[in-house]
């Protein structure tokens, strides 16, 4: 039994030595061809593309999550700046009216005093919005750095596997043109390509599944995060004004 294994191992080793360089070259060739097709925007096999439709839809959603999160971060930053500026201006106007009201003993002075109080309070309350906004900013930033980054990693790995798989399919299509199962040489080659397709397909499908699940999770957790963070913001906004 042991002998058998050793012998088989040696035999396989010899075979690999003989053909591995050639096989590697061919694998590289078809992969490069696929890369080229994609890079130059040449039309890909429509059925292969169609069979990935669900995956591509998920990827589109992922890109939208990615871009909208970055956009949201920018908007929050700008919003915070504006709120701070507005609050400052309000406060200054309040102080100015207060100062003027002190010197004015008429009814107008009273009104200026009252308005100044209202303005100063409003300025203070407006600043209070900054805390939940800051928290939201932090959470979105963490989401972008962790969750999106992690998904992006899987997407990149999946794309690599997809290129390998599509390259193998190109190769298979090529050897299928003149296939005759009764010719040993042809069959040997076909089996080699077949196992290459099977291997890359398994790898690709595993990663495809990973990507689909991760993107679904990403969407759900973003909803969760936003409804949670925006809740505190809303409470502030409604109750304080």
């Amino acid at each position: 039994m042991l002998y058998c294994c050793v012998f088989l191992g040696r035999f396989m080793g010899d075979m690999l030595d003989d053909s591995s360089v050639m096989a590697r070259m061919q694998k590289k060739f078809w992969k490069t061809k696929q890369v080229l097709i994609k890079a130059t925007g040449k039309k890909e096999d429509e059925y292969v593309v169609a069979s990935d439709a669900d995956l591509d839809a998920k990827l589109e959603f992922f890109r939208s999550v990615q871009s909208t999160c970055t956009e949201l971060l920018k908007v929050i930053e700008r919003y915070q700046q504006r709120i701070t500026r507005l609050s400052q201006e309000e406060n200054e106007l309040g102080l100015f009216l207060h100062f003027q009201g002190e010197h004015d003993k008429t009814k107008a002075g009273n009104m200026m005093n009252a308005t100044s109080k209202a303005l100063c309070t409003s300025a203070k309350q407006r600043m209070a919005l900054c805390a939940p906004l800051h928290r939201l900013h932090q959470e979105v930033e963490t989401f972008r750095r962790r969750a999106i980054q992690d998904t992006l990693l899987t997407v990149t790995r999946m794309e690599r596997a997809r290129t390998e798989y599509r390259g193998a399919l190109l190769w298979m299509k090529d050897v299928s043109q003149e296939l005759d199962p009764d010719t040993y040489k042809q069959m040997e080659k076909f089996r080699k390509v077949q196992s290459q397709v099977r291997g890359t397909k398994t790898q690709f499908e595993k990663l495809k599944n990973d990507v689909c699940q991760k993107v679904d999770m990403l969407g759900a957790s973003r909803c969760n995060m936003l409804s949670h963070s925006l809740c505190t913001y809303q409470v502030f906004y409604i109750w304080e004004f």
Partner: protein
Amino acid sequence: SAYVYMHTNILISFTLMQFTDKRFQPVHDLTIGVEFGARMITIDGKQIKLQIWDTAGQESFRSITRSYYRGAAGALLVYDITRRDTFNHLTTWLEDARQHSNSNMVIMLIGNKSDLESRREVKKEEGEAFAREHGLIFMETSAKTASNVEEANGIKIGPQHPTPSSTLSGSQGGQHAGGGCC
């Protein structure tokens, strides 16, 4: 000996194993591109080698499987009577088969898994109607109980072998009696 080439468009685990070594395998690996089977049969005292190409049903292999229709003498179009979607796909497969083969290729429609009557989704009459409409021979079989599997191939090979064997034996040439085994 003459060669008869048959391509089967197999969406489900079906006759290749059953027909070539009379075995039913409940778990069937997904076909990558194509699998081959071969069998010797005798018609009118003549030995004929039947080569069966079981092509992949997955969409991503569709452009690849198109090159396998070339030179086929007949096609078995197989659907699963317990899955309506496999029946619905027939039209596209039929189109492909007609478009990429020579015009005298005989096509046979087969509703497989007839042993699973309780889970049937496609009525036998529907299969018959589809076959009549498109000029196909029709039969329901069970690869599990082997009912009608021999008949499906027998009926089909009988009338059609004279035409294709003459055209194909020359082009393919080989003399391997053993044939491609999978």
